[in-house]
């Protein structure tokens, strides 16, 4: 009997997948960066801010809640810049990455038939799952860093009447990164359980439901009790800007969601017969 040996970690697979994802990541990162520049370009000019806020007020409280809620106030530069962190376009871009990457890497490879090739080499199912998880989580954090860099660059490009609290934006970005990673965890779980189309649908449905719960809870005071139900509640810009410390409670909730969904996905992936 030969001595047992552990298969080495599949770095070539990690590299290959990273290179495949990189163009999409780069495009998403560029768009997020440009959105930050655009938002700062608007909010550094008082006249433009007034016009923008008047226009948003005309659209009604629902739309206002949709693009920033109470943060949209004249004179609150930080709140206005933070719109760039939570406006629907930016969230959509994050969603694209969070949903697209794990489903493309796990369920997508299974459906293409290439997973059979990967697993026929010295690559365990756990290794494959870890590679997909790493690319998702690291990619998300890299996007968050790009978003923060967008704010940093913008504050150097434009003059603001008030000091822009970059440290608070950094806290917001880190918290946002954990939120995005948690969504990635949900997508990993879905990709481990279902075929690609179903995995994408489930994750998008989960996000859309959470997003609308957040909007409804912000817009309709009687539904405020729904706040803890939505994952978006755990990235509270107002709290991050007003309190000096880190929002440890919120971060723990999101990290728990990330860990539970990722581990559960890993167990399902390991146990499940892949539809090769």
């Amino acid at each position, binding site marked *: *009997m*030969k001595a047992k040996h552990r*298969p080495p970690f*599949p770095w*070539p*697979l990690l590299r*290959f997948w990273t290179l495949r994802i990189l163009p999409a990541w780069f495009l998403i990162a560029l768009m997020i960066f440009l959105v930050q520049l655009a938002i700062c370009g608007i909010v550094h000019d008082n006249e433009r801010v007034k016009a923008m806020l008047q226009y948003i007020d005309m659209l009604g409280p629902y739309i206002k809640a949709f693009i920033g809620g109470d943060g949209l106030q004249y004179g609150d530069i930080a709140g206005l810049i933070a719109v760039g962190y939570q406006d629907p376009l930016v969230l959509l871009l994050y969603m694209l990455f969070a949903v697209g990457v794990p489903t493309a890497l796990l369920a997508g490879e299974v459906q*293409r*038939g*290439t997973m*059979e*090739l*990967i*697993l*026929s*080499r*010295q*690559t*365990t*199912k*756990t290794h494959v799952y870890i590679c997909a998880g790493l690319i998702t989580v690291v990619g998300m954090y890299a996007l968050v860093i790009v978003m923060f860099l967008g704010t940093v660059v913008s504050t150097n490009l434009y003059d603001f009447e008030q000091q822009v609290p970059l440290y608070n934006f950094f806290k917001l970005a880190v918290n946002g990164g954990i939120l995005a990673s948690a969504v990635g965890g949900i997508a990993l779980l879905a990709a481990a359980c279902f075929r690609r189309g179903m995995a994408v649908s489930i994750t998008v449905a989960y996000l859309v439901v959470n997003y609308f719960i957040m909007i409804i809870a912000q817009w309709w005071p009687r539904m405020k009790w729904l706040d803890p139900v939505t994952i978006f509640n755990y990235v509270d810009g107002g709290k991050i800007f007003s309190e000096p410390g880190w929002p440890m409670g919120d971060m723990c909730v999101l990290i728990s969601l990330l860990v539970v969904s990722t581990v559960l996905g890993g167990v399902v992936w*390991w*146990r499940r*017969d*892949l539809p*090769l």
Partner: protein
Amino acid sequence: MKAIEVETLTKCYGSARGVEDLSFGIEKGEIFGYLGPNGSGKTTTIRCLMGLLRPTSGQCCILGRRIIHGKATEHNQIGYLPGEFRAWPGLTPRKLLRLLARLGNGNEVDKQQEELAERLDLDLDRKMRALSKGNRQKVGIIYAFQHQPEVLILDEPTIGLDPLIRQIVLDLIRETAQAGATILLSSHDLSEVAAICGRAAILREGRLVELAPISKIVQQGQRLIKVWFVEGTPVPELLAGELPGVRVIQQNSNTLHVAYQGTIDALLKWLAQYQVDRIATTETSLEDAFIQYYRKEAGHES
């Protein structure tokens, strides 16, 4: 120690059966044919052997190590060609093969890759999406052989290949076995199994119905004999059951076409009573034996 061992393997997909209570072993250096019609469980067995499926019960061992689902057990020693070789369309065969080699211990496969590509007449630098089905299959063959594995599991290796390349692949399989590798060859092409395999297993509806040397399987099939009687001699009538295992297929004015199983001795003794002009026999192919086997198993034998 057998190179490949399958012990009481059962795999069910929910209520549907994949394979049931399958047991066989393959010796080192053997080329073993794995036969069966579509849906008989060949690919299920192979995927259990590769650790891609979790057996419902039983176990598989390769080179003495038990295969654990998803653990890539001994995969550096296995060359695998899936039934349908599908790859990333944007890669060239060279990049694809290098990537797959590096997912094991096969960093030094470039020379072997080039040699195989030359032998199979394959351009390694065209994108996979631009390759024909046959050329993609050639990439699959190089993938299976490039790291010189001790065990090769080949699911329909010659599908889509032209006769010339098919012959080269069969030669490659023979040479690899002569060099000491063990080969499990699943195929629908019975002539190629007959040409290169020493033994074969026949599967039907997930169960092993035969496991024997090819020559024995062929012997079990019916053989045909055509007898011409001397002009003017009446053709004798062979009554049903008169000679066990012999039946008349066709009778004309001076010829008798007969199928028989087992030895020809009794038939020759019976014919010796008459004036026979000449006799012609046809070699039974594995295909005939296989078809008859299925008819027999399915209860269709007349």
